């Protein structure tokens, strides 16, 4: 049951082979057994989850269920949920109980899904290892000495360890795809604007995008069907007709043009990852796809441009945390200015403070053109590279991350090394394109490798089609960490 697909869980629930209450208890038990070891969840509230499960069972009995009714889903602690502690991995929100539901949470609630808990993450989603959480680092389910990736590391670890059948995440520079890769699960960052940002605590608003993490592409499609959709409360939410993201899963890949950017196979890519990705490309060719060399010449500048744009937006977004209306407030202060400075110094961790300082500097008078405007121009060049690539191919495929999971603590003292983890994922955020990571083998230390599939705008169904066809022919996505087997 812990390994079942969402489709199977859904039909099991509809046919009354299992109740949502039983299913929810099963996963809550699994969380109880493993969370001390992995630290994947910040908040679990069994009573609340079980109440939702009972309500779902009532709905199923009345034959008013939808595909996700009764299915427990873990949510990244960046999504505000009414009456749930919502910390965003930060001390500054350590007492913040959500007064309303994020659009994503409301969508899952409306679909009858059960909130299984709130997952651990890098503070304010700023990180690639889930080590910057105020609530302690998340451990990789495959090797507890290693990081699970980040920032949605708790969600990735929870799915990898079968503590949750599915989870939500957010992706600003790779925060769904990189932890999916390092934790051996599937994850999708949709096209910018597809999933509402309402109630999703803002990091860098022109890049932030919510999406699902699960065991397979087929599961991702079901989850995205529930998550995506227009929301007038998000000013950048796109108005489009609803689509079924599972509609193309079973299309054959014959004739598919797979763009392979040489820039993502050069210096910095470790040999084990390169080998697994090459094997995956060969498999896709066997399925009828054709390799097309493409160029992303400005790809190497994505990290520098990102570390101007994202901190700039963050410094503005995070100005709301001032100890006045909600959240942590410093205990002792002389006056209002002192209260702000102490609240923010004590409430934010080192990486968040660092990024606010970078953002404040690049936006300050006299530096705007040299940094912020320059980064926006490079952002255009990067987006343009993809426009040209997609004239020649249907999807761009490469590695999600240059290495497999690294050891906890290995990169915490060197921010630049940490930032370079996202070198292959950031370009899709800057361009606003959809992209997925799916398991494609194992590298050094028996740790999972992720295959990165980038599509053109609104081509989620195509990405999921490619991923599903690959997963029909391979079993990497069905492997689970041996040490945690039931």
């Amino acid at each position, binding site marked *: 049951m812990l390994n079942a697909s969402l489709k199977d869980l859904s039909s099991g629930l509809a046919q009354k082979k299992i109740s949502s209450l039983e299913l929810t208890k099963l996963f809550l038990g699994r969380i109880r057994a493993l969370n001390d070891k992995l630290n994947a969840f910040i908040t679990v509230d069994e009573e609340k989850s079980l109440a939702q499960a009972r309500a779902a069972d009532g709905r199923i009995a009345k034959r008013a269920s939808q595909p996700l009714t009764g299915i427990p889903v873990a949510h990244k602690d960046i999504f505000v949920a009414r009456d749930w502690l919502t910390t965003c991995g930060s001390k500054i929100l350590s007492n913040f109980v959500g007064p309303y539901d994020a659009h994503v949470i409301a969508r899952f609630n409306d679909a009858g899904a059960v909130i299984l808990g709130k997952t651990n993450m890098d503070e304010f989603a700023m990180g690639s290892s889930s080590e910057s959480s105020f609530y302690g680092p998340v451990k990789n389910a495959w090797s507890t000495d290693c990081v699970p990736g980040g920032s949605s590391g708790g969600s990735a670890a929870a799915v990898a360890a079968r503590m949750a059948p599915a989870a939500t995440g957010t992706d600003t520079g790779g925060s769904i795809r990189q932890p999916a890769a390092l934790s051996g699960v599937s994850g999708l960052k949709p096209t910018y604007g597809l999933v509402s940002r309402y109630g999703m605590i803002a990091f860098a608003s022109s890049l932030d995008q919510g999406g699902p993490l699960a065991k397979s592409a087929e599961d991702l499609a079901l989850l995205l069907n529930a998550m995506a959709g227009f929301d007038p409360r998000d000013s950048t939410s796109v108005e489009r007709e609803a689509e079924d993201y599972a509609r193309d899963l079973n299309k054959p890949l014959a004739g598919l043009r797979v763009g392979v950017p040489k820039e993502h196979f050069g210096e910095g890519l470790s040999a084990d990852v390169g080998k697994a990705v090459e094997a995956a490309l060969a498999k896709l060719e066997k399925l009828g796809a054709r390799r097309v060399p493409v160029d992303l010449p400005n790809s190497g500048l994505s990290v520098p441009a990102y570390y101007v744009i994202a901190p700039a937006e963050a410094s503005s977004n995070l100005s709301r945390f001032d100890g006045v209306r909600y959240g942590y407030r410093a205990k002792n202060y002389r006056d209002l*200015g002192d209260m702000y400075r102490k609240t*923010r110094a004590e409430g934010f961790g080192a990486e968040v403070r660092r990024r606010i300082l970078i953002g404040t500097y690049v936006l300050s008078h006299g530096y705007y053109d040299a940094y912020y405007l320059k980064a926006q121009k*490079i952002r255009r060049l990067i987006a343009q590279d993809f426009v040209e690539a997609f004239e020649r191919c249907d999807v761009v495929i490469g590695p999600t991350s240059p290495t497999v999971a690294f050891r906890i603590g290995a990169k915490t003292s060197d921010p630049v090394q940490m930032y370079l983890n996202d070198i292959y994922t950031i370009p899709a955020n800057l361009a606003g394109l959809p992209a997925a990571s799916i398991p494609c083998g194992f590298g050094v230390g028996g740790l999972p490798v992720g295959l990165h599939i980038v599509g053109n705008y609104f081509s989620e169904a195509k990405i999921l089609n490619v991923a599903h066809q690959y997963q029909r022919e391979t079993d990497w996505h069905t492997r689970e960490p041996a040490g945690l087997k039931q």
Partner: protein
Amino acid sequence: MPLTLKEVLDIAALARIGIGEAEAQAVQADLNNIFELIGQMQRVDTEGVEPMSHAQDLALRLREDKVSETDQRELFQSIAPQKEAGLYLVPKVIE
């Protein structure tokens, strides 16, 4: 051009983040490494390139000017650090 310690302290003041001299020195080293990375941008000629401020060319939506929210003051204030009579309390700013 590397950031000076004074610049780091000035930025922290602008960002309303209290920072001591010792921490400022550590932060200064980190920031300078990061700005060295960021500096790679200057290698590229971007003359005439239109800045891209957003992932999609969207125009802001307009809506009718009518009330769409309900009054949730009590609910929202229930999580405030300090409040009184429906107001948020902060240290006195005007004598």
